[in-house]
Structures are given as C-alpha cells and as structure tokens.
C-alpha cells in the first residue's frame, strides 16, 4: 500500500458515505419527479440532503442547488450571474490564482459576451490586497469571484472581509470553496457570500457531485435547460445517490472538523519543518499559517518536479507538482508564478496534500526518503539558482 498525499486532487469515499448512498442504486431507484411512492422516496432523500447541507451552511434549503461537479457550480455561478445582471454592468473581479473553472468561464465571457475582467494580483503568500479589491470596483462591477482556499498552495483568502466589501458596494460575491469543505467555516452568513461552490470529490464524497449555494434574491440564469429540476436552475434527472453521498460527506467532515484540523495541522507542520530542516535550498509556497491544514507546497530549487514525483512514486508516495513538464501546455503553475516567483521555482514545486488516511508514520517515511531523492537529482543538475534572491 502506498502513501497517498494527493488529497487535494481527490479523496477516497468514506465508508459511511457509501453506506448512505447504497439504497439509492437498486432499491430506492425511482425518479424524484415521478408521481408514486418510489419517486417520493427519492424526492425525500434529496430534500433531506438539501436540509442537511442548508443546516451546515446556515442557509435555507431552497438556497441549495445540487450539480454535477465543482466546475459546473462555478460555471453556473459565473455565467448565470453575469447573464442575469448584464443590464447593470459587465465587469467581473477575480484573482490570478483561481481554479481553471473560474478563469476559463471568465475568459469565455470576455471573448464571447462582452465581459471585462479584472484579475487581482496576490502577494508573495498568495493573498489578495483588500484595498486593491475595493479600488478595482467600478459602477459596472456585477460579480466578485474569489477562491476560498487555493488548491495548489493552500492559501486561505479573507473571505468574510471580502464579503463586507462586496456588501458595501452591493455586488454579488461568489467563492469557490472546493478545497475548504472539510476544514473551514462554511457559515454563509459569517462569510457574507451570495454564492458558494462545493464538490464531493474533495470531501470524501462521490466524484462528479457538486453544490451551489445561491442566496435568495440573487439574480441568476440557468446554464442547463430542460425538465426544470433544482428550482429550474439545473435541469436533468437528479443524481440521487450522489446527492445523498455529498450531503453525508459534508456532514461527516464538518462534524470532525476541529479535531481533524488539529491533527492535520500538526502533521503538516512536521512535514514542512522536517523537509526544511533536512533538505537545503527549499522554499515554502503559500502562507505559513493562513493555509489549509492539509497543504504542503515546497519548491526544491535546482531540480524539476516531475522527476521528483517519479522518484517518490517508486517509493510508493503519491504527490503532485506545478512543473511545466507535467502540464499539457508546457507552462509551469500560474499559481506559483503569480506569487512573484520565477519559472524555475515553479518547476521544482511539489504539493503534498494530506488526508484522513495519513498518519505520522507516513510523514516520517516521506522525511526519510526526501533528502536522498533531492541529493540524487541535484548531483545531475547543471542549474544553481541563487536562493538569496528568492527570500522574502
């Protein structure tokens, strides 16, 4: 068995979640729209799930829309709000470090529907500047979309403060909370968000499931048209087991949040200080403390990430990299270059994302093999990056 440290890519499905989903495959398999007991059983399951999720978000059940992925929720939030508010303006504010689902939805609107997009810069730790945000608001601004916690570097944005600014200027505010579902506060009233995206595949739930919170009164158009399910905002027969699984996963995560955050933070910090103590020339990417309890992102200078991954893989350790060599586009991670770090630093970045299944033994094992791998690759590298120029 390997050591899976790629939980930000996706998590395993919790057995309690699987158990909750089980009846809806072949026993209570009715269509929630059908007018009979089988349909009603399915419909009740969805409505119970909706209430469960609403409770966690401190929202009302009619504000919860189930979708087919984080990507779909984000597309609905951005395109849906843009189209419904187009008569008021055409300006969207987001950041340079969003997930592709946000960046590409914005780019689509820019290229095809006349949108103007402001991409906020982030500082060396990956955090936006609130003054810059406020200054970039114009009379045409209709939407702010800012990622809650970054999927690569784990940096957490000050969502509640952004929420206050959005409210002050009466601008709709969406946050992509896909990476925040297990560890962060999801109370939409505390956060001051109008829309919030979550997905199942990062919270020990089923893949291909998602949710969008839409505050009542928010003007939004559907992007999928048809049978009118999900209050007309997401047509298509509901994925009943998926919805039930998503809700159970979110509940399970949030119930053990405090305890699990504490445990993961300790493991995270042990891994960070362990690597920095035993491997020379490394850089921690992302904020040292305002970061997800499960995220470690470190650049190993002078060497390339895909080569490191292959060595780790041979040791049974599964992680990921922001190196250009492992991306289709042959471009290094835009998240890491957005921090003001040069390409060669992004090339050597490795993300270890921890999860429920990881133990202190796993961390010890990584710490045992890491120095040897780095040493080996450095011995055959012709590059010597000047580390001092990269210090904060």
């Amino acid at each position, binding site marked *: 068995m390997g050591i899976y440290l790629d939980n930000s890519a996706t998590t395993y499905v919790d057995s309690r979640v699987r158990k909750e989903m089980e009846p809806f495959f072949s026993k209570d398999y009715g269509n929630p729209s059908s007018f009979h007991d089988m349909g009603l059983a399915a419909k009740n399951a969805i409505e119970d799930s909706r209430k469960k999720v609403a409770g966690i978000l401190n929202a009302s059940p009619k504000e919860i829309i189930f979708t087919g992925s984080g990507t779909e929720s984000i597309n609905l939030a951005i395109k849906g709000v843009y189209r419904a508010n187009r008569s008021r303006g055409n300006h969207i504010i987001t950041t340079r470090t969003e997930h592709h689902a946000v960046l590409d939805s914005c780019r689509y609107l820019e290229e095809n529907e006349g949108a103007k997009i402001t991409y906020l810069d982030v500082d060396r730790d990956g955090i936006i500047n609130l003054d810059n945000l406020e200054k970039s608001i114009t009379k045409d601004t209709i939407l702010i979309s800012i990622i809650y916690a970054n999927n690569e570097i784990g940096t957490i944005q000050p969502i509640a403060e952004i929420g206050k600014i959005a409210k002050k200027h009466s601008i709709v505010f969406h946050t992509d909370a896909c990476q925040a579902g297990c560890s962060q506060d999801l109370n939409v009233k505390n956060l001051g968000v109008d829309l919030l995206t979550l997905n199942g595949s990062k919270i020990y739930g089923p893949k291909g499931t998602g949710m969008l919170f839409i505050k009542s009164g928010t003007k939004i158009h559907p992007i999928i048209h048809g049978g009118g399910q999900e209050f007309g905002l997401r047509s298509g027969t509901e994925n009943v087991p998926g919805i039930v699984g998503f809700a159970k996963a979110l509940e399970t995560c949030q119930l053990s949040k405090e305890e699990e955050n504490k445990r993961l933070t300790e493991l995270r910090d042990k891994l960070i200080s362990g690597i920095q103590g035993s491997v020379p020339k490394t850089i921690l990417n992302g904020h040292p403390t305002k970061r997800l309890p499960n995220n470690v992102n470190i650049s190993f200078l002078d060497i390339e990430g895909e080569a490191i991954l292959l060595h780790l893989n*041979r040791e049974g350790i599964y992680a990921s990299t922001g190196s250009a*060599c492992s991306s289709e586009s*042959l471009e290094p991670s835009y998240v890491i270059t957005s921090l003001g770090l040069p390409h060669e630093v992004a090339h050597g970045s490795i993300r270890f994302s921890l999860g429920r299944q990881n133990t202190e033994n796993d961390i010890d094992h990584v710490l045992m093999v890491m120095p040897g791998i780095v040493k080996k690759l450095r*011995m055959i590298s*012709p*590059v010597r990056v000047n580390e001092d120029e990269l210090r904060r």
Partner: protein
Amino acid sequence: MGGDVQTGENEWFYSEEVKEHFFSPKNIFTSEEEAKNYTADGEGMVGSPACGDVMRMWIKVDPKTDRIRECKWRTFGCASALASTSMLSVMVTENGGIKIVDALRLKPGDIIKRLGGLPARKIHCSVLGDKALRAAINDYFKKSGQFSRVLHAEGKIIDPEVNVSDEDIEHAVLEGARTIEDLQKRLKVGIHNKDVLPKVKELIAYYRKKHFGE
C-alpha cells in the same frame, strides 16, 4: 522519428529503458569534487532553466582515433530529458567510443529509438541532448585548434533562448509537425520567447508548402 518510436498520445508511462536510465543514470559525476576537477576537451551547454530544461555536456576525445572517449553530463528537466541525456552519453561512448563524424550525425530520433520510445508529449525533451553534444564537439574543435572543423550555426537561429534554427524547424515539419503546438512539443520554440512566434508560423507555412505542397 517514425511511428515506431513514439507511443500513443495518451500514453504516459515510460518504457523500461527510460526508467532504467532515469533511476540509474549513466556517465554522471558522483561527487561535486569530481565535477569541479573534471578537465574536458570540450564542453557545451544549451537551454534555459526558465524554459524548463538545461543540458550541459563534457567530452574527452582521443585525438589519434578521433573518437569520443568519455562523456559526462548534467541535465535539468523531467525523466525523459534525464533519460535521453543518459542514453546519449552511452551511445557516444560504447564500443570504444563514437567517431566525431558519426556523433555529429546523431539525431534525437536515434536516442528515442534506443529508449524504446517516448510519450508523444515528451519528444521535445530529447532534442536538447544532441544540441549539447554538438556544442561540446564544437568547443573541442576550437580548444584543440582544429578551426577548419568548427561547425557554423546550421541555418539561422530563430529562437536564441532554446537555440532553435530554421533548419530545426524544417526537420520538425518533415517529421510531421503541422502547427505551432506540434512544433513546440518538439522544439520548445517561442514558449518563453513569444516574440519569435510570427516568424516561426511563417516558417512552418513555408516548409509545409515546400515539402508537402500544402
């Protein structure tokens, strides 16, 4: 580079040969001291770390036989880049060493063939190897006073960042590149240095017309 040397577009995992050279690279320095004290007859370096890969090669040449006796290297890049350089270093030193004339005829496709293929999106990783080797041989010609043998840049350099010439682009088109994306998979041209893209596009169109009448 025929169809036999590249695996499918979605193929990611490496051949046994690639893994062998990646995990146990040949002809490398085993300590910093060894690298520092190494006296080569010729040395070459190509690429830039910002672009993703850098290769540096050192050779020793037997002047009597005009064969490469030793070849050491250092590479910054992915597993394909490391394995390609390692394989190249074996190819030029095996069987008593390669004759310089033959070394100059080596092509990236020869390395890929010996590696049992590379995934399609990794073909470009093998290109820098033979450039580094040429640079090292050229350096040897200069250092040993064989000025008549010094190679002049083949063709015209289009992207100095990655040392790609118009002739390299012609070769890539002959090997099947049809678009700028195809070309970048092989040559990395214009990835960092975007200013050269218009010129590169023009050359692709020109060579497609010249060779394929397209």
